[in-house]
């Protein structure tokens, strides 16, 4: 993954490649954004403008789409993604408190990334494991019946 601070020529040439593969037309927008986010990790304003120019779209249209779908992010992503379920079952069985602790440990709010770029914190509305509530995930790993006291131990596994 490219660094998040410098939007150097290298990144723009990668976007050019992606646009070439997907087709330089307005209808490729969502696919291009997916691929670009996969490459860079997030979609900052200059990247959105660049994609808009490449596809012949107004920048506002690109921003509309980016802001509509929760999958897209305009903030740099952490190395690991923590998702805490706030579906009904998880919520009533302590998911809310788990989320509070996760945010405190990471030092950032939902939709944000910790200062050391280690974690991005997100909320999910159900992952279909209500019997194991409350549930949280870190990257591809699922943790069930999470107690607030276990959060530190879970997060420590991820560098």
């Amino acid at each position, binding site marked *: 993954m490219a660094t998040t601070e*410098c*939007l*150097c*020529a290298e990144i*723009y040439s990668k976007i050019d490649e992606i646009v070439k593969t997907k087709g330089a037309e307005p209808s490729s927008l969502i696919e291009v954004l997916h691929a670009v986010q996969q490459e860079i990790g997030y979609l900052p*304003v*200059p990247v*959105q*403008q*660049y994609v808009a*120019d490449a596809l012949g779209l*107004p*920048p*506002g*249209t*690109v*921003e*509309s789409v980016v*802001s*509509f779908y929760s999958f897209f992010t305009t903030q740099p992503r952490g190395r690991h993604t923590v998702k805490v379920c706030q579906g009904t079952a998880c919520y009533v069985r302590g998911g809310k408190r788990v989320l509070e602790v996760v945010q405190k440990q990471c030092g950032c709010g939902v939709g944000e990334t910790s200062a050391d770029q280690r974690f991005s914190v997100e909320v999910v509305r159900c992952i279909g494991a209500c019997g194991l509530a409350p549930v949280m995930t870190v990257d591809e790993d699922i943790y069930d019946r999470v107690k607030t006291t276990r959060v530190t131990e879970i997060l420590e596994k991820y560098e």
Partner: protein
Amino acid sequence: MSDINVTINGQSLKAEPGQTILEVAQQAKIRIPTLCYHPDLPPIGACRVCLVEIEGERALQPSCSFPVRDGMVVRTHSAAVRKARRAVVVLLLSDHPSDCTACVRNGNCELQALAEELGIREVRVRVEPHGYEVDDSSLGVVRDPDKCILCRRCIQTCEEIQGVSSLRIKGRGYDSLIGTAFDLPLGDAVCVNCGQCINRCPTGALTEKTAIPEVWAALEDPELFVVVQTAPAVRVALGEALGMPPGEVVTGKLTTALRELGFDRVFDTDFSADLTIMEEGYELVKRVTEGGVLPQITSCSPGWIKFIEHFYPELLPHLSSCKSPQQMFGAVAKTYFAEEAGVDPAKMRVVSIMPCTAKKYEAARPEMRDSGYRDVDYVLTTRELAQMIKQIGLDFAHLPESDYDDPLGESSGAGVLFGATGGVMEAALRTAYEVITGERLENVDIVAVRGMEGVREATVKCGDLELRAAVAHGLANAAQLLDRIVAGEADYHFVEIMACPGGCLGGGGQPVPTSMAIRQARADAIYQADRSLPIRRSHENPSIKRLYERFLGEPLSEKSHHLLHTHYTPRSKQTVETETE
């Protein structure tokens, strides 16, 4: 033959395939309330105010976008419809600021009118408005997002009519916000200040940046000599904002009202439109005969000027170097007129009444100071003038009529044509024909360039020369024409482009609402005003002749170039620059 039968509220109606329920109802004078629907825009069914009950349909459907079918039975005001419609409007009101009395659209707001029509006396769900900041960074257009009901008409207008796409919707649900890309202040965004979004905004979320307080202050300052100019399109629309029907020519009442307001001289932009024709006509003749850059494109419409600067900077050499009539007027008022009248130009203020919000930006351009002062000090839209007329309690419809003052008040019918799409072309051709051929043009009504088609073409025989002309109005139409010029598929001599649909008469400073029917009524009034004038050709205007004799010399003279011509600034169409080190 292909007719289909529809029943609306028990009335049997004939309809054509492809028509929407709303269209069929409107033809039969059955009112269905609407909010996001606008006759100039394709329907999107966003607001759900126009819901109707259709027999056999599971849910209520939006009539603006629902096509009719043979045998369809529709009820527009059943109990279920009334309940749903009311719920929709109550929810729109739930986070809408309720201080209607302090809103620029008080009395002319579609949301307010709808609440009245539905008899809403209580808004049971009330949440605080978002508390968004008012964006008054633009010299033309002010945005107040708290008053926005997310109907998206402004977005559609900016994208589909103007091809500018400055506005977009961001986010989802309660957090949805209409604004510029990347939340730039409008003053920094790629916006041409045309104000077409204002004309189609149902509420007070979009309005012009007002100059009313500054103009009152100037009028009340005994040290200042305040002159006013009125654009051609103002006289055919002002009445609408003061209780008169569209299409009334109110020139004589307008001048009386301006004197009542306290202006020291009441002059006419039609005069400087005639002056523009002299300069621009001679420029065209020069380009055609001496092999200059062709086509020459008109430069009167400041929304168009900013558009070409952003989107087609490579075509800037095609633009006529002539300032717009507004700016020519300012430069002449503070030099020639100041001299003739013995007024100190430092103590003179020039106010414009314009159908236009982009004129506010134009007047503030740094290059528009050739008189040695700011050439035009304040610009008021037609709407703002109507407001000031109300403020002094004039019964506008019954005002006596009066004439413009000399020496900048006399004009030809060609000058007034500037208010309609194709008008500058027609006015220029009336003069260019006679300059090129040295013969008198028998019929001054060049109807080939009139009309409301988005792009029109005409060939006019001027002696040996077949002068090829094209006219476009609405910037999306203009872009089509420009793309053909760029591609080398069009070889015109002269092109007229106006930013707004219908030309200035449909400008972003004109009374709200707007529609094709209203613009057509204003256009008919423009041609009526032209016909009613004894002089129909700009070069025969005695005041213009005198101006050249006493002051400018001849068209394209050095003095003309200094005062009446300008230059342009290439700009980027990118909202943010993507170039990095």
